[in-house]
C-alpha cells in the first residue's frame, strides 16, 4: 500500500509534465523530445535560487518561468523555423532529440555531474487509507490538483483555451474565423513550458537528490502516459499519467526499480494493441 502512495506522487508529477507535453503536440504538432532537458534545467534554476537563500516555494516560481521562457524560445527560434521549411514531421522530432542532448549535457558541462538537493523539509508524516504521505508529498498532490483544474478551466471555459483547441483541430479554419494562430501557438508554448518547468522542479523535489541527467529517461514515461491517454488529449494525459505512475511504482516494489521505464512501455504496448488511439483519443483532438 505504501507503493500506492509513491505511485500517486509519481503520477501527480507525471500528470503535470504530460499535460504540458501533450499540449505542445496537439496545438503545435511538435513532439518535443527535449521536454526532459527543459525540466531538469528548470529544476537547476530552482536549485540555484534555493541555495542562494530563496525559499523553495518561491524558487519554484523561478523554475516555472525558466520552463516557460525556454520552451517559448525553443519554439520561436528552433522548431518554427524548421516547420516553415515544410520538412517531414520526423525532421523536427530529430531536431528535438538533438536539443535534448545539448540541453542535458550542456547543463552537465556547466554544473558538473555530482548530485544536488534542494533545501527542503519533508514535513510531517500523515497516515491514511494505509498510505504514508509526508507534507511535501501532500503539497505536490495539491499542486497537481490545482494545476490540472486550472488547465481544465483554461481549455473548457476561456476564449484562449477554446482558440487553442480550435487551432489544434483545424488551424486553417481557425484562421478563417479570425484566430491569430501564431499567437495562440506561442502562448501554448509559454503555458506548456510553465508546466514543464513546474514538473521539472517537483520531479526533483520528489526524487530528493538529482543531477543533470536525472530526467533523461523521463521522456519514456511521458510518451507512455501520452499515448496511453491518446496523443493530444489533456484529459487522456492525466489518466495515462495515473496509470503509468501507479504501475511503475507498484511494480518497483516487487521487481528491480531500474525497470520502471520498461514497465511503462509494457503497459503502453499492451494498451496500444487494443486501442491504437489511446483510451480517450481519436486520431488527434485537444
Amino acid at each position, binding site marked *: 500500500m505504501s507503493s500506492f502512495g509513491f505511485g500517486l506522487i509519481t503520477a501527480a508529477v507525471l500528470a503535470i509534465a504530460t499535460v504540458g507535453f501533450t499540449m505542445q503536440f496537439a496545438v503545435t504538432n511538435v513532439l518535443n523530445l527535449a521536454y526532459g532537458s527543459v525540466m531538469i534545467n528548470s529544476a537547476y534554476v530552482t536549485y540555484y535560487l534555493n541555495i542562494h537563500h530563496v525559499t523553495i516555494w518561491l524558487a519554484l516560481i523561478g523554475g516555472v518561468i525558466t520552463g516557460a521562457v525556454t520552451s517559448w524560445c525553443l519554439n520561436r527560434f528552433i522548431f518554427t523555423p524548421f516547420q516553415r521549411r515544410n520538412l517531414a514531421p520526423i525532421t523536427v522530432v530529430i531536431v528535438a532529440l538533438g536539443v535534448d542532448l545539448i540541453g542535458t549535457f550542456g547543463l552537465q558541462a556547466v554544473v558538473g555531474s555530482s548530485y544536488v538537493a534542494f533545501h527542503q523539509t519533508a514535513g510531517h508524516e500523515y497516515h491514511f487509507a494505509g498510505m504514508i504521505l509526508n507534507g511535501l508529498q501532500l503539497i505536490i498532490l495539491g499542486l497537481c490538483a490545482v494545476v490540472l483544474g486550472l488547465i481544465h478551466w483554461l481549455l473548457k471555459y476561456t476564449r484562449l483555451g477554446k482558440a487553442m483547441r480550435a487551432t489544434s*483541430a483545424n488551424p486553417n479554419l481557425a*484562421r478563417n474565423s479570425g484566430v491569430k494562430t501564431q499567437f495562440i501557438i506561442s502562448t501554448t508554448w509559454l503555458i506548456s513550458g510553465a508546466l514543464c518547468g513546474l514538473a521539472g522542479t517537483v520531479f526533483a523535489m520528489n526524487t530528493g537528490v538529482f543531477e543533470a541527467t536525472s530526467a533523461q529517461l523521463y521522456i519514456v514515461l511521458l510518451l507512455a502516459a501520452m499515448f496511453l491517454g491518446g496523443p493530444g488529449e489533456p484529459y487522456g494525459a492525466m489518466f495515462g499519467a495515473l496509470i503509468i505512475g501507479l504501475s511503475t511504482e507498484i511494480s518497483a516494489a516487487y521487481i528491480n526499480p531500474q525497470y520502471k521505464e520498461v514497465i511503462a512501455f509494457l503497459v503502453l504496448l499492451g494498451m496500444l494493441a487494443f486501442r491504437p488511439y489511446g483510451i480517450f483519443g481519436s486520431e488527434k483532438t485537444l
Partner: protein
Amino acid sequence: MSAELSKPGQHLVATGLSAGYDGRAIVSGIDIEALPGTVASIVGPNGSGKSTLLKSLVGVVKVLEGQVKIGDNVVTNTAPEEIAKLGIGYVPQIDDVFPPLSVRENLEIGGYLLPRRDVEASIEAVLESFPRLKSMLTRKAGKLSGGERKMLAMGRVLMLSPSVLVLDEPTANLAPLVATQLLEEYIRGFADAGSTVLLVEQRAKAALRISNWTYVLGGGRIVLSGAPKDLEENPLFVESFLGGAAPTK
C-alpha cells in the same frame, strides 16, 4: 435568413489572378467579381481549380499574380485572420468544422472576433436560422451527420454577420430537399438581404437558378461566363453542364 446575420455587401473583385501550390499555378488569368446583393457562382468539372481559386481569395492559398480587392481594400495574399476581420465568411469544401469541439464551441469560435457580450446574441440568431442545431449544442461537431455538419459550418461563418460569403460546395452530400432549401432560402436570401455571395456549386442547374452571374472554370481558366439565362441557351454550356442539347428557339 434573419436580417441581423448579414451586413450590406462589399464588392469582391479578382483581376489577372493566378494562384497555386508550391509556386506552381493551378488557376491563372482569372477575372471575376461578385457584387453586393447578388450571387455569383463558379461551376466546373472536378479538379478544374474551383477550390483553389476560392482559397486564394481568402488568403489560404498563395496568389502568384494579379490582385484581389474587397471593397476598397486590396487583400492580395493577406492573412486569413485579417480577411475574416474585413467581414468575409469562408466555408471550405472539406474540414469545415472543428470536430472535437462542441456545436456551441464551434459557433463561439465563429464569433471569435465579436465583442464578448455579443457572442450569445449571435448564437441565438444563428440558431433561429438553423433550428436543428438547437438540440445538439453540446454534441461534438465530429459526431454530426453530413447535413447537420454543413449547417454548423454555415452557422459558424454567419456568427460574424459577414458582408461577403465565400462558399465552396455547401450542398455537397446534402439530401436534395435540404440542398434546395439551403441554396434558395439561405444563400439566395443572404444576397437578397444585400450581402455578397460567391458560390462554388457542382450542380450547375441549381447554381444557375439562384445566381445573378455564373463563371465556368475549366483547366484553371475561366472558359465562359454570363447571366444564367444566357448560359442556359449556350450550346457549349448546355452540353457540358446541363446534360442535353440546347433548347432550340
